[in-house]
């Protein structure tokens, strides 16, 4: 019996998911509908992870398989003039001198599972790598991870480099064990999140607010 997209994503079966997409297109399915089905399945992987029913390897493999599927779908989406609607483009990495990347990988994978386009610059990444990549991919958000207190200053350097590079539309969030809301605010970050699901919600909120501003809609302040 053929595997479902959810099963293929969980297995990280890139070869079979390419076959699945190719067959769906050959059968005449709308590319946008295929993408919706895959996105729903990816969302289910994220939900399973949050419930503790799937773990980090499955989340990362699903992200890789989803990318393989999207690569096959892209030409068909362009031909059908359907737009591939990403929730936003995120550049994520762990700061210079910090070799810890498990937390960053969790956030990156959960963002991908929730419909964001994620560019991972890896660990031990200098500020200029974050900025160069963000400029290349026109990132909506730069997500900076620092597990060590001794490397927190490198997150400040990313924000300083953003200011210098004049990227008014890009937002920056910071995260990691030593990061507090007060510290994030003090260095000019647009926010911080205590865990991966909160980081996803924060990116959704920041990008949503920026798009409203671009559209000339002033977000109403919530009453206290």
């Amino acid at each position: 019996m053929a595997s479902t997209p959810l099963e293929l994503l969980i297995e990280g079966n890139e070869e079979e998911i390419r076959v699945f997409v190719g067959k769906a297109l050959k059968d005449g399915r709308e590319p946008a509908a295929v993408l919706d089905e895959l996105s729903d399945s990816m969302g289910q992987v994220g939900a399973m992870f949050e419930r503790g029913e799937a773990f980090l390897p499955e989340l990362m493999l699903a992200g890789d398989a989803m990318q393989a599927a999207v690569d096959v779908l892209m030409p068909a989406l362009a031909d059908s003039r359907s737009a591939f609607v990403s929730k936003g483009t995120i550049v994520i990495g762990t700061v210079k001198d910090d070799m810890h990347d498990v937390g960053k990988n969790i956030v990156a994978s959960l963002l991908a599972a929730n419909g964001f386009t994620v560019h991972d610059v890896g660990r031990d990444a200098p500020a200029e790598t974050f900025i160069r990549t963000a400029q290349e991919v026109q990132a909506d958000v730069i997500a900076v991870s620092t597990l060590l207190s001794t490397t927190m200053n490198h997150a400040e350097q990313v924000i300083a480099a953003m200011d210098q590079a004049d990227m008014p539309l890009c937002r920056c969030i910071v995260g990691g064990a030593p990061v507090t809301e007060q510290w994030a605010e003090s260095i000019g970050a647009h926010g911080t999140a205590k865990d991966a699901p909160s980081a996803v919600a924060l990116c959704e909120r920041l990008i949503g607010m920026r798009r409203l501003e671009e559209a000339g809609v002033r977000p109403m302040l919530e009453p206290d």
Partner: protein
Amino acid sequence: MGLSAMHDERDRVVEFYDRALVGEQIGERQFDTRILPAKLRELVGKYEIVMTPGEFVPTDLDMARRVLEAGVELLADLGVYCTDTERLIAISRDEIETALEESPESFEQGCGAQTVKVRARGLDDTRAPSVNNGSCGSPMSEEAVVPALASCAMEDIDGLVTGYLKSVLGRETRARTPIELLACKKEVIYARQSLEIAGKPGLSILGIMSGGNSESQDACTFEGGLRASDRHLNVLDNELKLSFDTLNRVLHDAYAGTGTVSAIAPMLGGYCGGPESTAICGVAEVLASRVIFDNQCMGSWVESIWQDYASPQWLWVAGMLSLAFVAAGQHLVTGNWLGGNAGPWTAVQCREMAAQSVAVIACGSSIVHGFNGNAGTVEDHVTGMESRMLVEVCRAVAGISVTDANDIVGRVLAGYEDLCKPGNAPFGKSFLECYDADSLQPKEEFVAFWEAEKADLRSCGLPL
């Protein structure tokens, strides 16, 4: 004899360096997401490792023995991944078995009047475990570090565990700067000052927490720094990984003559997956640190992506990392690092500490390397009272069976499950809020609080 190089046991790490150059090459992401998880799934099935839902302390001794067998098979089949060469460092079954056989049943730490013998414990062992404690990696200010550590050393601990110095000489500690290196040196200097104040100059110091790389870590051995009777940490990366920087540290310790303790931290929900596979991976990491680092003393911390340090699965894995060896009759000096989400002077912290201590001591842990509060993230949230509590609880529960421990832990945590979770756990107080900084004595209300908590814990079955 010619002038050729003579064998020197201190050079043993070079053998693993050589293997890192020629082992099977695999991409790191491939290792993390496919090779290791697939092998773990295979071993969980093959050895029928199943955590009984709701069980806090592992009680199935046959299964504990199978966890050890699975851990041996994992390490013998995969080896350890070197992140510098992206190759596997092969380790043979013979090497693992020899390392276990040659594990010392005891060792001494500390010097002079503070020399203590740390012994491998067994099941239902009424001999008290050794208890180290201190700031245990938590951030410390220069203002509070000496009095806070002195307050810990004044309690009946067997070794002092240092924390991370947030600043030195008024300058923030930053990676790869002279301040990071200085912080590592000052960390030991301040620890030794605190031992002098406590009147226990020979108490063993366990560190170093202020430096993230071998250059700064190795700066801790100097005249007035770490001594042979102290303990330096050797750390494996998540999961089953190491770098040349780790080997640098091992080599330095071998030549400096410093004692070592391993700090392995298998992560629940991470590359290991669930509790069963995390236990197997953790056992393999203990074995790897024994084989590669040649540590006399083990130290296992269970990391969790959910930070659920009082959940059944966390306690089960923490206990299993000792029970797997003890149930199989191995005489390894197993050890556990403990810690929770709540801060000092809170009932929740007492519950977290009691539950974790009961679980690991009943499972045969030989030494507890300390308990840190607030998940080790809040500055100066360290006091000597946590050392008092930890010592009293760990010594009181020696001899409790795993079955009784399971019941006790259930009662200790009843009604506290949600309060122990991150975000719900109470923040607690800082050292200067809990202690008189001049006399280094806890406030009377804090002492009274612990006496009341002890009475509550007694009602849960702890023989305090």
